[in-house]
């Protein structure tokens, strides 16, 4: 039962993730993204990681995709036409995609993340216990959290600089 559920939701996750890229209608693409996130949440629930699942739904499905839709509707984007890819860009993106695939494969095969059921901790304290999450975020993973936070800050500053008009500062425009 849980095996077939896993295959069903994994397939649905991948299908809807593909639809995000291939659908022409921006609203339909955003909704496929939403479906993909919900299915990922279900996969987390099947791993007994309830907290992670609800965080994913709350932050990404509940707020981020709603913001996407807000922006899409506010700008009233039409499908539009875009220039066909040039040969150089097609070759480059194929190479980049292959490299990414190889990287992920090597990472999955040779890293410590290739854990089997035997090497995982037996207690499911990561499922719901907030304290375990908090402790590991503030000790083991403190540097990645800070780095990602800094990256987000830079991204936000970039968006503000790019989108806002500064009066009397012609060089930015």
């Amino acid at each position, binding site marked *: 039962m849980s095996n077939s559920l896993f295959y069903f939701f994994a397939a649905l996750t991948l299908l809807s993730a593909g639809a995000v890229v291939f659908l022409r209608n921006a*609203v339909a693409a955003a*909704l496929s993204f*939403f479906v993909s996130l919900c299915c990922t949440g279900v996969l987390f629930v099947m791993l007994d990681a*309830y*907290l992670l699942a*609800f*965080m994913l*739904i*709350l932050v990404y*499905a*509940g*707020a981020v995709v*709603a*913001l996407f*839709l*807000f922006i899409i*509707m*506010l700008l009233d984007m039409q499908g539009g036409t875009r220039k066909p890819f040039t040969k150089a860009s097609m070759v480059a993106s194929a190479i980049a995609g292959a490299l990414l695939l190889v990287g992920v494969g090597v990472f999955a095969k040779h890293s410590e993340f290739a854990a089997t059921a035997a090497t995982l901790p037996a207690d499911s304290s990561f499922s*719901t*216990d*907030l*304290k375990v999450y*908090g402790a590991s975020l503030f000790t083991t993973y403190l540097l990645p959290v800070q780095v990602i936070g800094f990256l987000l800050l830079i991204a936000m500053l970039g968006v503000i600089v790019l989108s806002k008009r500064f009066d009397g500062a012609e060089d930015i425009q």
Partner: protein
Amino acid sequence: MDFFFELPLWVQAALKGLAVIAVIFPIAGACSMAERKVSAWIQDRPGPSRAIPPWFAIIPIIGPFLQRLGAFHLLADGGKLLFKEDPLPGHVNKFYFVMAPLVAMIPALSTVAFVPFGAYVSEAKQVVPLILANVDVGLLGVFALASLGVYSLILAGWASNSKYPFLGGVRASAQLISYELSMTLSVLPVFLWINAPGQSGSLSLARVVEYQSQPGFLGGMWFVFLMPVSAFIFLVALFAETNRQPFDMPESEADLVGGFHTEYGSFKWSLFFVAEYSHMTVGSAVFALLFLGGWNPLPWVSLQTLGGWLHLTGHPVVLGILSVLIFIGKVLASIFFFMWVRWTLPRFRYDQVMRIGWKQLLPLSILNLIVYTCIIGGMEYFGHR
């Protein structure tokens, strides 16, 4: 009772799901009738008072009383909405147009699973909460699922393919995200307070009620007295999240005809309102659990104390039903408060809604969190806990 637990797991789950629908759907319908009747009382007019089936009309006193109360209008309205023609305008995006009311129902009905609605005292003197899914992250579950409710409004507004619904959908998406932040921040002090350091943390709603039913002055105090600012922010954000006046921007009929549901009719239209009222019910239930002591009858009087006074310690079923009744009473009182506010405050303008959300409520809730963190830290430091 044992036969229920011997059924296969999926049958149990299906039965629980059906029970949720069987309870929430009529409550939502009754809320819509109560809304009309309460509006009538507040505006000093009779309100719905006509419909009555003929076989009830011949009962001498009860029949006319129920008629004047408008008790049968729920049946009449429900029947009308079910059987009248279901219009499907030609210019809409049909798939999403039909999907929007269905999407509205899913979060509205599933949030109930995380809300404890009563408790009984087991033979081992333990207070056991009555709840469908007793997970440790209860509140996050409610917030996460309730936040998905916005998609029905966005979808309805977009799929209707006309101007007023579109504006309603855009307003809904911006408003609901803005107030979600303040809502989440406003309940954090409560959970900081109940989770003493050194213990494993919990976001369970039943645990909050447990904390409010302890003996002693601080233990039995409801959080509405201990954290009035948190309660206020939560309540305001709840009004905004459930699209109630004075925050009903997505459907403000004065400037948007009907907002997101302008193009809808008959039962599809009514599903939006079932969803809205069940969000309101669940929101009121969460408010009652967090700030009004859940199933405890009075501040500083816990359910167990009441059971001791009424000599009910040996009757878990009676005490359980009593706790459910107390809890439902609180939920209904808070739903009445929603309707009362509707006829008391005028609707905000949209820029005011945004200003209140981002410039007033959000800073206030951050300040509130910092103040309570300092208080709790100070109490830890000086050893008062």
